[in-house]
């Protein structure tokens, strides 16, 4: 540090000169120009040859050359000293706040650069602010040479210059501040306006202090606006104020309210969310910043979401109903149905499946075990499908067990993969079909088949047996026919053989009775009558037997012919007249006049009627016999009935009397004679005629034998 050289005696320039400078400086607004003017004055007034004004920059970090005297401009602008270089003699001078004379040799470090005036010493005078509250020096005035007269003028100038420069700096600062403020305010405004949400600042009274464009659109109107818009704005203001007023009670925390407004341009309803917070302003007092967020779309979106949600719920309800229905359907299927997810877990099953695959709460250990066994069988079956990647279906038989009854339950299982549109396996559905019945049916069918085969075998055997029997029968039939023919021949021969001696008996008896061999005593004649009577009876029996034999052998020919029925009846009655006379009975005839001609075998009809009438006479001790003839069946048939008042025939005997060798009384001691062949022959003859014999009788009430035969017999081929 060097002691500055002693200052020359103070000599001040003239007052006029100083006044002129002051006026000049006051007129000059630019600091550089000011400094330049000052330096010019200093040269003139104090004989300063070289000078430099270095001013501190706005940030106060550097001292830069501002104006120079007798110095090239580049050197002026190139002069620069960092203010934080505390060891620099200029900085020291500035800090000291008083003028000093500096010598380059002693004071300037080479590294820091030389003083502006080369090797000459210079006087450095700080230019400090006039206002003591602004302690920072505004700059430094360097002058050379250091002459005594220069001192006072330089110091005065420094004072004047610093005052003016500080004033200028202050002015410049103010201007800068104002410009910055204006720019900031404009920026702020554009920022606020750029916000799409309306933003307002309101004062205590609720009046709008600041509003961005969006807010103005909603809340401000001009006189030339349309009536509708003005009304909408007025309504909006009212709503907004009311919302703010309500907000006023709620303290300093930001609050949110819904605020319905009207779009002034088209009158449509808008919904805003009003976010307001108190904004402290020390000068203007408390205000409220409000941001209105348009939530109309949000609300619409919300409503849409709600609507969608509602639809979703309806759809869900539908789906649930559908699922319930599906569940019902699935449950109603008698076959067990199971659905397993890709992990193999059963996610759905119907009631029949539950019976097989779920363990009831109160199940016994055996039941649970059977269910687990079923489950294992099922799992291993479904595993087939999991392993078979390319297969969509799998079919197979599983031997399950009814968990409760332990009855074996063979089922046919059909599993199918449920695959999503993207081909992912969603689930595997399985239907089990009870095959018990089927297998039972198959078993029954097999049994049936076996039985059928057996039956067939038996039928076959029976058929061959039948064929054998048939052959046997055929032979027997031939033999029988031969036997029958032989029998008939035998009977015919027998008949002949009977007749031959009987012929002699009857002949000789007749001759004796006629007295051919001389007259006889009455007792002899009586006995001979007995012989004849018995011989005739024997002949009748033989004739009857022969008739039966002929009919049986089919050798009784029919000789159909036309004849009159009444005449036939009369003829029969006449023929048995001796018998009638002997019996003492009354015999009458009832002949329907409509019965006239008939075509049949007259001889056989007569034989039947004759037989019936003789029978009636024989079995009627007292009373009457009636022979009647009439047409029946619309004239197609003839009925000849013989009615008596005889002993009658009991119901149990009524059929037997038509049998061969029968009488109602078949005891050996029977009262009435006859071989009992008459009715048997009558019935056979009636059948030959295409008719029939019937009997109505009651014991002791008489009998009625009826012959019914077709009036027009068919011709036999």
């Amino acid at each position: 540090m060097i002691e500055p050289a002693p200052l020359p005696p103070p000599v001040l320039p003239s007052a006029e000169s100083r006044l002129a400078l002051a006026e000049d400086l006051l007129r000059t607004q630019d600091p550089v120009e000011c400094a330049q003017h000052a330096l010019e004055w200093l040269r003139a007034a104090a004989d300063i040859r070289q000078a430099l004004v270095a001013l501190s920059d706005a940030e106060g970090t550097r001292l830069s050359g501002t104006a120079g005297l007798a110095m090239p401009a580049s050197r002026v602008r190139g002069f620069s000293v960092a203010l934080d270089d505390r060891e620099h003699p200029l900085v020291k001078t500035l800090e000291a706040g008083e003028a000093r004379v500096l010598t380059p040799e002693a004071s300037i470090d080479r590294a820091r650069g030389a003083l502006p005036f080369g090797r000459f010493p210079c006087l450095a005078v700080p230019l400090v602010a006039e206002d003591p509250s602004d302690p920072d020096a505004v700059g430094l005035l360097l002058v050379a040479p250091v002459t005594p007269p220069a001192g006072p003028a330089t110091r005065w100038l420094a004072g004047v210059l610093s005052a003016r420069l500080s004033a200028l700096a202050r002015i410049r600062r103010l201007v800068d501040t104002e410009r910055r403020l204006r720019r900031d305010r404009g920026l702020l405004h554009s920022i606020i306006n750029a916000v799409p949400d309306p933003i307002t600042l309101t004062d205590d009274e609720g009046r709008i202090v600041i509003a961005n464009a969006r807010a103005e659109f909603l809340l401000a109107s001009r006189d030339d606006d349309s009536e509708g818009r003005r009304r909408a704005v007025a309504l909006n203001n009212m709503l907004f104020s009311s919302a703010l007023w309500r907000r006023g009670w709620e303290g300093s925390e930001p609050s949110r309210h819904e605020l319905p407004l009207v779009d002034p341009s088209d009158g449509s309803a808008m919904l805003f969310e009003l976010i307001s917070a108190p904004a402290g302003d020390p000068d203007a007092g408390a205000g409220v910043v409000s941001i209105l967020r348009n939530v109309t779309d949000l609300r619409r979106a919300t409503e849409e979401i709600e609507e969608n949600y509602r639809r979703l719920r309806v759809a869900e309800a539908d789906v649930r109903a559908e699922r319930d229905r599906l569940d019902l359907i699935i449950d109603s299927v008698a076959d067990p149905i199971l659905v397993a997810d890709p992990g193999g877990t059963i996610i759905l099953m119907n009631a029949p499946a539950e019976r097989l695959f779920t363990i009831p709460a109160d199940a016994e250990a055996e039941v649970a075990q059977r269910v687990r066994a079923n489950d294992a069988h099922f799992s291993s079956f479904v595993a087939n499908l999991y392993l078979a990647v390319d297969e969509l279906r799998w079919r197979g038989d599983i031997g399950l067990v009814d968990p409760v009854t332990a009855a074996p339950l063979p089922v046919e299982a059909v599993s199918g993969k449920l695959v999503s549109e993207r081909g992912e396996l969603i689930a595997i559905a399985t239907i089990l079909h009870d095959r018990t019945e089927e297998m039972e049916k198959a078993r029954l069918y097999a049994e049936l088949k076996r039985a059928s085969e057996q039956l067939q075998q038996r039928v076959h055997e029976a058929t061959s047996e039948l064929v054998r029997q048939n052959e046997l029968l055929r032979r027997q039939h031939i033999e029988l026919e031969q036997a029958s023919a032989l029998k008939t021949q035998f009977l015919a021969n027998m008949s002949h053989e009977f007749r031959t001696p009987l012929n002699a008996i009857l002949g000789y008896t007749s001759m004796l009775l006629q007295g051919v061999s001389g007259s006889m005593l009455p007792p002899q004649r009586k006995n001979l009558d007995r012989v004849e009577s018995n011989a005739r009876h024997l002949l009748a029996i033989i004739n009857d037997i022969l008739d039966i034999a002929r009919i049986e052998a089919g050798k009784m020919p029919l000789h159909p012919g036309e004849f009159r029925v009444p005449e036939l009846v009369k003829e029969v009655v006449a023929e048995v007249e001796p018998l009638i006379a002997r019996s003492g009975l009354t015999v009458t005839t009832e002949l329907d006049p409509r019965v006239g001609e008939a075509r049949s075998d007259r001889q056989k009809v007569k034989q039947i009627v004759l037989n019936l009438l003789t029978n009636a006479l024989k079995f009627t001790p007292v009373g009457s016999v009636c022979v009647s003839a009439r047409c029946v069946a619309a004239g197609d048939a003839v009925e000849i009935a013989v009615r008596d008042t005889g002993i009658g025939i009991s119901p149990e005997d009524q059929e037997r009397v038509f049998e061969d060798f029968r009488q109602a009384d078949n005891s050996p001691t029977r009262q009435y004679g006859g071989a009992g062949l008459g009715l048997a022959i009558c019935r056979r003859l009636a059948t030959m005629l295409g008719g029939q014999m019937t009997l109505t009788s009651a014991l002791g009430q008489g009998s009625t034998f009826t012959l019914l035969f077709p009036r027009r017999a068919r011709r036999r081929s």
Partner: protein
Amino acid sequence: MTDRATSPLVLLVDDFQDNREMYAEFLRFSGLRVEEAANGHEALDKATTLAPDLIVMDLSLPGIDGWEATRRLKADRHTKHIPVVALTGHALAGFSEGARQAGCDAFVTKPCLPEELLNEIQRILVRRARPRPAKKIR
């Protein structure tokens, strides 16, 4: 009683002696002349030699039976005019028809009482004795 010499001669053919003799006795008793034959050969012989007015022929004969005998008689111009009354114990149908085909003029079924046979013989003889006058006149 008719004159023996002029009364008709009946040849009675039957192998059963009792019947034959019974009929013979009754016919003689009734005034007819009777010759008897016990079989077919005898019947043919006697019919040729005796030239009876009528022959009663039992059909069941040993050797040449009644049908055959009748056929031969009817085939012989010397005997064919003699009426033959067939007599049989067989009552079956076909016998009488066979007898008519063989040439019998009448058919009588046993048992036949002597007087019935006599009636039949007389009926035939009367018909023979009185040929239809119309034919004769022309």
